[in-house]
């Protein structure tokens, strides 16, 4: 029986060695506990040859603590952290492809101004809008642009910087 504690959104940052197959190993830990990964990003971190995975999940804190323990236990994971929404600054990016027929639509133009979105490409048949913001910002813009018949829509996973320090460089020094 699962104790139904309140679910919350957590951003999990995992610093790892750069090895093939690690994504599989990490996602399996979420899978095993039947946790849906809302978004995921992988990139090089601030440390040479160290990668950083950023997962966003919505689970009780009790559970995320255990998951982070199990992530950290993986051989090639250097450190794993979890943070609440208040502890991080985060952004997502999205792109929308629309027919050029709407390029001079005033309503669209106004919406773009409000959303700090801008046009990155224009061709004779389509144009592309790009925006960066919180998930909700992108959701709202999506709802607004949807009636125009989106030709394509794509959004990134979350990228996040934490307010608290993540003592990862020190840790690596210790290991070396």
């Amino acid at each position, binding site marked *: 029986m699962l104790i139904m504690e309140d679910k919350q959104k957590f951003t999990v940052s995992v610093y790892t060695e750069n090895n093939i197959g690690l994504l599989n190993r990490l996602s399996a830990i979420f899978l095993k506990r039947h946790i849906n990964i809302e978004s995921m990003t992988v990139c090089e971190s601030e440390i040479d040859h160290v990668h950083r995975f950023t997962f966003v999940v919505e689970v009780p804190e009790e559970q995320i603590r255990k998951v982070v323990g199990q992530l950290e236990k993986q051989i090639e994971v250097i450190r794993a952290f979890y943070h609440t929404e208040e502890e991080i600054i985060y952004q997502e990016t999205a792109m929308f492809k629309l027919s050029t027929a709407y390029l001079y639509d005033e309503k669209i133009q106004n919406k773009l101004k409000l959303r700090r979105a801008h046009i990155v490409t224009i061709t004779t048949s389509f144009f592309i809008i790009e925006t960066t913001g919180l998930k909700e910002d992108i959701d709202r813009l999506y709802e607004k642009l949807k009636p125009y018949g989106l030709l394509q829509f794509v959004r990134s996973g979350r990228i996040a910087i934490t307010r608290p320090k993540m003592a990862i460089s020190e840790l690596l020094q210790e*290991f070396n």
Partner: protein
Amino acid sequence: METLKKEIKEKKSSKPVRVAGAEAVIKCLLEEGVHLAYGYPGGAIMPVYDELYKYKDKLHHVLTRHEQGAIHAAQGFARVTGNTGVVFATSGPGATNLVTGIADAQIDSTPLVCITGQVASHLLGSDAFQETDIVGISTPVTKWNYQITKASEIPEVIAKAFYIAKSGRPGPVLIDITKDAQFEEFDFSYKKCENVRSYRAVPETDITQIEAAAKLINSAKKPFVIFGQGVIIGAAEKELKTFIEKAGIPSASTALGLSALKTKHPLHVGMVGMHGNYAPNVLTNECDVLIAIGMRFDDRVTGNLSTYAKQAKVVHFEIDPAEIDKNVKTTVAVLGDVKDTLTKITPLIQQNSHPHWLDQFHKLYKKEEEAVINNQLNPTKEGLTMGEVLHTINSQTNGEAVIVSDVGQHQMFACRYANFEQTRSNVTSGGLGTMGFALPAAIGAKMGVPNREVIAVIGDGGYQMTIQELGTILQTKAAVKIVVLNNSFLGMVRQWQELFFDRRYASTVMTNPDFIKIAEGYGIEAVRVSERKNLSNAIEKMVASTEAFFLEVVIEKEDNVFPMVPTGASVSDIRLC
């Protein structure tokens, strides 16, 4: 740093020898002190087998009859010796046949290095003949795994594999080697791995936690220890004994912790868990300080967590930080290697005894004895019981044998009734509960400790899951003693059907072959016992034999294992019948 790296490089290249990848694999194993391995050949691993042929004087390879047999044998070897078991298999079906054993080793923390052949690297991902993504498949059930596509990676990766498998909380590692990497030549030199920068094998011990734990234990009126396999893996049997004797704490074992402390030690109060002893289960919910040592609060141990030891403060000695607070909230967590942490805490513990508290265990033991144990050991009914078979084995081996049990009722009887005088004497598939484990595991165990008596206790169901390994016994002459407790049922499942499914015996009735003829077909001396008066003589004969021996005991068909904590019930609601 750079100069250091250069030095290491120079040191490494001091005596390089040009060899093919396959030969390098064998050389690495010899460097790691491996002289015995199990496996099964096939196309993608043939270059390695060719080298095994050349190196057969130095590295003995045991051909099992199935890859599952090979890996369980390696597990049996590892469990009795503490050394890393080594397994070879080919790609595709060879590799997938290992998966059950890998999962078993992962959950029971058994050190293994599995080496699988893989199709040539230019074929990877093309659905080539016998290609399977064994790295992907084994990822969730390995401590670490890696695919080698270049021969030059072999020494470093294998060194790392052995370090990871054995250090900290042990586990299985799988190394997949493409066939071209086995053929490729390179300059070989070997350096043992002593450190992986992203991996801390043993967490640092916080001395303040040791002090806090000591304070709690010293103030306890009803302290209770539950120890697990961590004590055996950490070779901390002596430290455990000194600690509990000084503090005078009644101590119970998990199934996998059995034999870490002599069964007859005056402070040993039995086994906890679903079919454990009555007293330690009931009194788990009465102790004031619960001291868990190298165990992980498995659900078969705790029953319903919401009513488990709620009154107690919990001290957890553990090597794996991910186990802390995973199932049971601790008051004090003592991270580290138990051998070290127990050594550190014992001087801080006051000499003590808890006679009234210990007496509570004895009183409840009496109750269990009257309700359950006497009927098993001195049955008044005609049918033979599993308990009396174990009892007879105890008296004829003086508790010195390694008991390897399979999964089911007989396993619980073995754990409950076997008398263990020595550590590393109870080998069973605990966490995964893999039927078919015992016969091959017993073969591996016998090869690991050839001077000890190794007795496999198996049900008629599980026996038939890996019965082909009788062929391995025939070929290797491993002097394993096999006891099949035949109740003509998948007994444990039948018991649940009786208790919880109104006796609807769905697919648990077994029509069995003539086990005696089968054993004899493999050249193994075989005896069947169906009457009580013949039991003792048959076991005597079995123990006296210096070769493999098969004993079938026809058991009362519908006997049950009790006590029992039904699923979802509290440990203190354990049923005696």
